């Protein structure tokens, strides 16, 4: 006796969160059944392995059919075929677009191309995330990228509108899209200690302050590309390190303001010129695409690492940087 066909269709589509997770994690039906058995579900419910197998198959089939709709979440809301309560719809979408930290760190800043996709099996081996799951996450990034890439308006809003993601997840996707578009290098060994959250934080600030959207809200691609004019203008900062008087003046302003407030004052005082030169050099080089890509590498090399070797506490770094940029405004030519 073999089962040829075995289906269950509810008027309200049944979604089992645990099975959904297993499916998203890319497990095969067999593996999923084994994992569920291990979770002790058979003992809890008194079911048999055959029942579990049939149930898992059924859910997998449902998810497979829903996947097409999940690629364009608004369709999931308006479709008539599967009756799913709104809260469940939200859960389906949110979980489908959720990604693994380990995975996103691997592809952040990479071009979302076929080439990268070919490398996914390496990533899968490295991170222990199934290839299937890697593909889903990668395709999600790419899909979101494609949809919002040529759009006007705020990046986060666009993502939210077209993919119905939560605010948090939409911001994360904005960061991913922004990084992918500008191809920032994040994979270097030096940068490994940075989490996705760190980069997402940077991305958000950069989108707010460095993009076309920061100046004019009616341009295509406004939140994706850096504002070329702004980068050009950054070149002018060179005077801060090239002009010796200005450099000294800047230093004295910063030192006066921070005296007694900084635990690492002496180190700062001693290093000021180096630090300032490092920062300004990073800024002035940003007109070249290659240097844009290396932005984070350069920042770490030129600024973060010197600070770290002197054991600056975070609060001191913050105070210093605030004072560093604030004092510039009182210099001649920057008023």
């Amino acid at each position, binding site marked *: 006796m073999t089962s040829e*066909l*075995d*289906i269950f269709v509810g*008027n309200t589509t049944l979604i089992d969160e645990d099975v959904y997770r297993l499916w998203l994690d890319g497990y095969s039906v067999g593996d999923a059944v084994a994992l569920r058995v291990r979770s002790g579900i058979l003992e809890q419910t008194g079911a048999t392995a055959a*029942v579990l197998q049939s149930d898992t198959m059924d859910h997998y089939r449902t998810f497979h*059919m829903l996947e097409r709709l999940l690629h364009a979440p608004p369709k999931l809301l308006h479709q*008539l075929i599967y009756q799913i309560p709104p809260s469940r719809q939200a859960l389906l979408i949110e979980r489908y677009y959720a990604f693994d930290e380990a995975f996103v760190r691997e592809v952040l800043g990479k071009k979302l191309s076929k080439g990268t996709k070919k490398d996914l099996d390496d990533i899968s081996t490295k991170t222990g995330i199934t290839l299937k799951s890697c593909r889903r996450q990668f395709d999600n990034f790419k899909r979101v990228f494609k949809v919002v890439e040529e759009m006007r308006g705020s990046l986060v809003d666009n993502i939210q509108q077209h993919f119905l993601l939560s605010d948090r997840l939409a911001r994360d996707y904005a960061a991913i899209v922004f990084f992918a578009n500008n191809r920032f290098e994040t994979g270097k060994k030096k940068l490994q200690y940075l989490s996705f959250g760190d980069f997402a934080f940077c991305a958000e600030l950069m989108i707010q302050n460095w993009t076309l959207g920061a100046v004019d809200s009616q341009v295509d691609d406004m939140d994706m590309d850096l504002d070329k004019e702004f980068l050009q203008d950054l070149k002018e900062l060179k005077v801060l390190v090239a002009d010796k008087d200005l450099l000294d003046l800047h230093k004295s302003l910063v030192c006066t303001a921070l005296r007694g407030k900084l635990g690492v004052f002496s180190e700062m005082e001693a290093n000021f010129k180096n630090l300032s030169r490092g920062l300004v050099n990073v800024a002035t080089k940003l007109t070249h695409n290659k240097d844009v890509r290396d932005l984070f590498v350069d920042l770490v090399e030129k600024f973060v690492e010197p600070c770290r070797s002197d054991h600056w506490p975070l609060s001191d770094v913050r105070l210093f940087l605030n004072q560093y940029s604030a004092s510039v405004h009182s210099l001649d030519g920057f008023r």
Partner: protein
Amino acid sequence: MPGKLKVKIVAGRHLPVMDRASDLTDAFVEVKFGNTTFKTDVYPKSLNPQWNSEWFKFEVDDEDLQDEPLQITVLDHDTYSANDAIGKVYIDIDPLLYSEAATVISGWFPIYDTIHGIRGEINVVVKVDLFNDLNRFRQSSCGVKFFCTTSIPKCYRAVIIHGFVEELVVNEDPEYQWIDRIRTPRASNEARQRLISLMSGELQRKIGLKVLEMRGNAVVGYLQCFDLEGESGLVVRAIGTACTLDKLSSPAAFLPACNSPSKEMKEIPFNEDPNPNTHSSGPSTPLKNQTYSFSPSKSYSRQSSSSDTDLSLTPKTGMGSGSAGKEGGPFKALLRQQTQSALEQREFPFFTLTAFPPGFLVHVGGVVSARSVKLLDRIHNPDEPETRDAWWAEIRQEIKSHAKALGCHAVVGYSESTSICEEVCILSASGTAAVLNPRFLQDGTVEGCLEQRLEENLPAGCGFCHIPYDELNMPFPAHLTYCYNCRKQKVPDVLFTTIDLPTDATVIGKGCLIQARLCRLKKKAQAEANATAISNLLPFMEYEVHTQLMNKLKLKGMNALFGLRIQITVGENMLMGLASATGVYLAALPTPGGIQIAGKTPNDGSYEQHISHMQKKINDTIAKNKELYEINPPEISEEIIGSPIPEPRQRSRLLRSQSESSDEVTELDLSHGKKDAFVLEIDDTDAMEDVHSLLTDVPPPSGFYSCNTEIMPGINNWTSEIQMFTSVRVIRLSSLNLTNQALNKNFNDLCENLLKSLYFKLRSMIPCCLCHVNFTVSLPEDELIQVTVTAVAITFDKNQALQTTKAHVEKSLQRASTDNEELLQFPLELCSDSLPSHPFPPAKEHLESASSNSGIPAAQRDRCSSWIELIKLKAQTIRRGSIKTTVTVEKTSPMGEGNFRNRSAAPCANSTVGVVKMTPLSFIPGAKITKYLGIINMFFIRETTSLREEGGVSGFLHAFIAEVFAMVRAHVAALGGNAVVSYIMKQCVFMENPNKNQAQCLINVSGDAVVFARESELEVVSTQQPAANCQPACTGGEVTT
């Protein structure tokens, strides 16, 4: 020119890409009705076209309006080649033809293609302007309402129940016409869909005409089926019950049986009347075991004769009316005469209803059924479907005579079905023989109401169990006892019926789903030889199915079956029998005896040991089941279980005749359990197998209950969380030397595993009950068995169970008392002779069983000589208790929240899709149906030539069923409804050819589109009208543990 149909095509969305080059579609729409076609403009290059067409107007006869569906085709315009069809929408405009239903159909419909499935949606608005039709000789029957619901619809009142209507139409199946060889599968499927739609319309119109002839205005319990007879044609047939319905003016005015006196209630008071029924006939010794009356009168010849089996479980008698005077008091005799005269005018006194207005059902005789094996022949003249008509007439005649033999004038819960394999067809009909109250069957009921009160003095809760036949004149001895409730009349020891549990029945404990499953191998044969073989097998199958049912019922410690449905399916090389029913313990019937195993060779020691081991297991199971289903009738005597039985086997008892019912006077014998055991003789391995299979049925996991009736006795605190589902399984049998036993085991496992899977899937709904579990078996190919299950899972609130039950009991008491008080002046004198007897037995038994667990001696009853006092006393208790019940209603589940939004189906593109509930039940828990919008009757075909790519057979069928649900929901939403009740999947024919990568499936579904409102939304009219009022859900209320 009686009607103008107006159609507007608004917009489309999510259309498929038809032009690969541009990834877009140039869509336009053809709107066709009858022979007239209109077209919209092409909306270029869009997947979300906005046509906003003008109103297309069709001027048509109302006959056409009823028959024809509106056909909307969406196409992709192609300048150079032929336009490609994207898909179609068929809209049945029938709901627009009667005034009370929908006025407009407006909404998003899935665009359906038989090859690709749903491909986007289209927004359509449809209206009908009807002109008054003064033609007396009209062919149309606009205005007759149709309901699938097999009870009086919730917001109506039955003025008269006229009776049985039936009709069938036949045609050639387009799939088998010569043209099918040259047309595409799509064209062929569409021709079939359209033809069935047309035939359904015609059928409905013709039935409507019959109803108008009978002066009715509605058909309730409308069941339409189609038989795919292959080469010989296509038959669409329908049966129903013609009624005259009155709409209850406002939903609040509708306070059904369980309420304080409203206007309607005054007219239906008998439900709770005291019991003045004077049954004076001499009591006789209650004895004799249950027997099967089994009379296979089979004869088979080519065309017209039939092989049939009578399977009335309860004994039957040859005489119908002669006993009337003897059996009951003068009232009863009068009633009987009236019923008879009312019913005798009818050719077939059949009713497709399974639940009845209070008082309608007087006595129930037992299940009557008839089957007949026919050879199909090409239908030569579609306009004269006489052969098929004759076949059915024959079967109905037989049913009628069976009913008569049981002393009944009518058959209720009547249904018909067929099973076809190649050219052999088994026609089946079954129902429950019953005696009905004539009140609803006559005209001018309202005036007659007062006098009728006299006759309606039936004891509540047990009256229907009393035997309608004459105990002195039974051809088969049956085990009759005095009713355990009223002690006045005789009842059988087991009752099988096809109806729902009557609302006033007193049940102890909870019920459960009981199934008998059976396979029989059969040699492959041709034509007549085949039919003969089947005819010969049928009686044996029926017999075994009944033995199984009886054994399982006893094993559960129960004594009655409701909703019995026996399906016999014929295949190439086997016959399958599947019987489903809901077992309950009726308080009025005696405690069932245990099952006694008897070995063949009593001298063998080890064998004996084995036997006693089995016996112990059985006894344990019975005890466990009693606990599980909370069956603790007032008097349980230990000796009942597993007591030895002197008498050998039922067969022998068949021969004993009338001698038992003598006139000697005895008192009620409550401890007759010893004689009541059921013997199973283990004389061969087969029997052993049977016993084993009895014990292998696993009870549902805790927190789960299941039944195949509308509601579960003993559960009444439903929440609004419901989940309707369809599950399909197909297994392939290993064809190597199949034996009957292996086959049985396979089939048994299939059903059991299916149930287990359901319990597992729905575990998040615990505590919950699967209601209206409907199994269908088919044998699509030699080695394939297909089982389709549709049911609804309803969550109930466990915590409130006890409290509510109590409140319900009290409430039921109260309503009894109010009614009584009101009617006091009147029935009091008239029924003076009944005073010593108990006024309302179920209630009393309750209190007593609660207070003392002893039996109810007659003396105690007599002490209560003034029952008015008793009532007043109880009424007080209730008033204190009734407040509690409100809690149940206000509780809404999280799922329910989304439901209000969609009450008006908004056609606007931006709105999210409204929730449409679907349920096979006639009600929605925790809600009131405020409007019936019309019948939904849809037929779909889906075919694929890329089976693997669509996920194999499972993927294909899963998607298709989901699509069918979606289309049903869309139609309901477009009618302005938010639920389908009495939903049924009547057919799911699945054929596959994996080698060719092909599959095809036909599905036929129907139901009633309704608008419901949550009870919390409705105004509470009176303080005494909490919650559960109009819901059948509360009908189990009288039941306690």
